[in-house]
């Protein structure tokens, strides 16, 4: 994510306050530091992951990621292992809580649209490499689908027609996050 940081800052700078790359870089670095000591309870581990982002300077995207992770944490509390087939369900829980918290809706041209596509694309897959591949394709497809559509949420909204051909930095960030899982 360090490599992606300046790309994301630039994209975000064009449409918002330019802190997306820094937020993610810092958050994932905390995660990396914490990784060796994460608890066996998947729910508690996901909670710590969420906290890696709440520790980063207040940013909407960071808070949304933390919110999504917290929802997944609640759903997996007390389990030491979770089957890969549960990923779409967990993504659904994350999606709902992120939408509730940020008041975003599907169709607004945000990370929620991309995440929903990932959720659908990973249905029925039970192996991580296949899920990651399907997920990346889903995010790419979502970005392509939304080119020509206006931003309907957040600061990018004020750009009106100028925003039509631009990709949502939040979607690009999601793609980079998933790519770093390979």
């Amino acid at each position: 994510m360090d490599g992606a940081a300046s790309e994301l800052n630039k994209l975000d700078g064009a449409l918002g306050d330019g802190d997306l790359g820094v937020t993610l870089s810092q958050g994932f670095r905390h995660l990396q530091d914490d990784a060796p000591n994460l608890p066996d309870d998947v729910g508690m581990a996901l909670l710590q992951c969420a906290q890696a982002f709440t520790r980063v300077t207040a940013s909407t995207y960071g808070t949304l990621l933390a919110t999504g992770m917290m929802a997944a944490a609640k759903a997996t509390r007390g389990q030491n292992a979770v089957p890969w087939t549960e990923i779409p369900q967990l993504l659904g829980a994350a999606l709902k809580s992120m939408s509730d918290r940020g008041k975003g809706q599907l169709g607004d041209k945000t990370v929620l649209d991309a995440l929903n596509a990932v959720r659908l694309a990973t249905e029925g897959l039970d192996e991580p490499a296949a899920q990651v591949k399907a997920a990346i394709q889903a995010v790419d497809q979502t970005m392509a689908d939304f080119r020509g559509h206006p931003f309907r949420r957040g600061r990018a909204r004020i750009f009106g027609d100028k925003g039509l051909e631009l990709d949502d930095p939040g979607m690009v960030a999601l793609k980079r996050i998933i790519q770093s899982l390979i």
Partner: protein
Amino acid sequence: MALRLTLERDQSMKKILNRTEDYVLEMLEGLCSAHPAYFKRRGAEGRVLVRPEAPIAGKVGIVTGGGSGHLPVFTGYLGPGLLDACAVGEVFASPGVELMAEAIRAANGGAGVLRLYGNYGGDVMNFDMAGETVEFEDIRTTTVLVADDVASAGPAEREKRRGVAGMVYCFKIAGAKAATMASLEDVTAVAQKAADNCHTVGVALTPCTVPAAGRPTFTIGETEMEIGMGIHGEPGVRRGPLRTADEITGEMLKMLLADMPLKSGDRVSVLVNSLGATPLEELYICYRYVACELAAKGVDIIAPLIGRYATSMEMTGMSLTFCKLDTELEALLLAPCDCPFLRC
């Protein structure tokens, strides 16, 4: 939030401070040093203030939080019969999730924790997340948002209103209830009733300056005032020429009574609050008008508060709050309390 470079202090900012980056931390240091019986520091960089007696076993904890720049709100109201812990943000900025979670933990005496704070988007998001975080530690939390600023939204959208000076009444009433060792449900219910019964409107004459910004939060003409302005300089409902004290107070009174009509025999507490720079003398001039008007209506005023209770640094202006009382609320309002800024 964009990365900030450390700039040379803007010489046009006529405030008494050292480095702007140290404004809040130095304030906390001074506050705790002056009142060690009331404040202990916790959390990252000591940005959580906690009553030394907290947590009190079996008592519902009450926490608050929000941006600095409003003293005595928020953190000033920690003490017996009041609040237990407070997460402190940078000037006019929300404290983060972690600080709020730390405040909740510090206030938790095993009977649950009420999060009682002003209705501002960032604070709501962060306090909600803090509650979810501590859920994993089996700490039960509830929320009551103070949304008393009648100028910020109409009666049909009351839940969108900003939280302003009415917070002081809610802190007092909820704190008194918690001190009786009432349950989380009961403390929450009475806090909500207090919040629902508080109505406030403000008027601003001159702006304040956030240290990190280095210049005033808004501009206003030399002979102008803005009715309904928020405590961070949020736009009000009407900007116009500065009127007399009685005209201003009369207009504000009308706005409050439109929202919450009062009839003969009703009992209210009244808070005439300086936003920072307006002196006591002027607050008393306004109070005199309110007292007269309410007496004419046959409304009794109980335990009025006149002074600096919820400020916006050096903003000139005042806010007027009515807290309508029933038997329960009145008893709680008059119960003993103790903090450096309010004693009953």
